């Protein structure tokens, strides 16, 4: 099982929490909105879920390898 993350750029508040907690797995784009780096290097599935749960705006969506969204609430 390998989870994937995406950031809903319309929802992101640019808090930078994901970038601080998981540098390399999340970065800012040119407008300082977060985006996930494909493959989220060095981050376990559990850690990825933890980062997504900590996102203040709920902008991070995590899916499993079958594309099923992981429950974050």
């Amino acid at each position, binding site marked *: 099982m390998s989870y994937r993350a995406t950031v809903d750029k319309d*929802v*992101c*508040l*640019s*808090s*930078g*929490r994901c970038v*601080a907690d998981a540098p390399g797995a999340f970065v800012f784009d040119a407008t*300082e*909105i977060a985006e996930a780096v494909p493959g989220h290097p060095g981050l376990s599935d559990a850690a990825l879920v*933890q980062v997504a*749960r900590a996102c*203040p*705006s*709920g902008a991070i969506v995590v899916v499993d390898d079958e594309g099923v969204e992981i429950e974050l*609430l």
Partner: protein
Amino acid sequence: MSTVVLTTFADAKDAYRCRDLRQSLYDEGEVVMADVLVNLHGEEHRDRRRVENRLFRRDTFELYERDLFPDVTAATVAPYVAAGHADLVPMGHELMLNLAALTAGVDRPEGSAEETKRLYAYLMRFIEGATLAHSTRDKDAQRAVIAQALRDWDAEFLAPSIARRQALGPEGAPRDVLACLLAHQDELGLEHEALRREVAFFLLAAAHTSATAFVRSIDHVLGWTDAHPADVERVAADPFFVQRCVHETVRLNPSSPTGRRRALAPVRLRSGVEIPAGATVVIDLLAVNRDPAVFGPDAAAFDPHRDAPQGVAPFGLSFAAGMHVCIGQDLAAGVVPRPDTLAEGHLFGLVTGAVQHMFRCGVRRDPHDAPERDANTARPYWGRYPVLLGGRR
């Protein structure tokens, strides 16, 4: 109009993340709170928050916590230690005002005690404005006084602070809210009155919420160490333990005892709770943060050794959640440590730093002068909290 009261952790978290529920906690406090960050909704909120979040990030917090706050804390507390006593309520507000002024971007060019006293008086007026809903006094009379205080504060403090930052330019200006707003003024298009309220809001929010958490944390730690003498030494030596005490205090005593939202459309929470359009939603944070389903059967007790379940913050929902989660959460309470977190490089939060400093200064209750609650508000604030300082407990 109907009111729906939420008392479970799950419902509260669900509600905070619902985009059809808009902020309404400060409806009566518009004299200070109109169109400030926490009162905005939707795109307007997102756009303002994105700008301000460029300041409220980990690197800024590290600058504040490591380089700026320790000296200010020591300098503020030193005269009280020399005197051997203090009332924690005004002293806590003075300390947090000094820290909040740095964060908000309110200069004190004279650097005199008199100047700080005047800023303190303005701060107390702004706090009255923000918490007007809970006031037990004549609210119309208070509104008029608070509106005048805002104008006077602008003339004495805000206008010179703006002028200094404009003279320094974006590269030379300090890292604070005012400089951030000025640097992005083209993007935000804030009128002067809105800028005034926004900076006043950051000043009062940072100072007041931290000051109340500061006094309550010391009260809880004093009570805990009386009953658990084995933890006395940990308070002075272990910042992780103090941070746990602060988080537990904030869980049991959220800055506002309730969150409040207004439904812009019908909402059905995951639990099945129905909220009709137009209804007021009251999030009972005192109940939510004592939810035994989340924090266990002793949820109402203060226990700094408590471990919150995975995915739940140790301070519960005191900083809210979702898009309106407190922008200063990490600044005030620090980052929640993981089991392998090392002290070096960890953010403990300004309240932890201030509380631990007080215990290193020997803070203890005055056996001849008991603390009293504030009778001027329905909020559970301490009105006075006399302590002795100096020496060891």
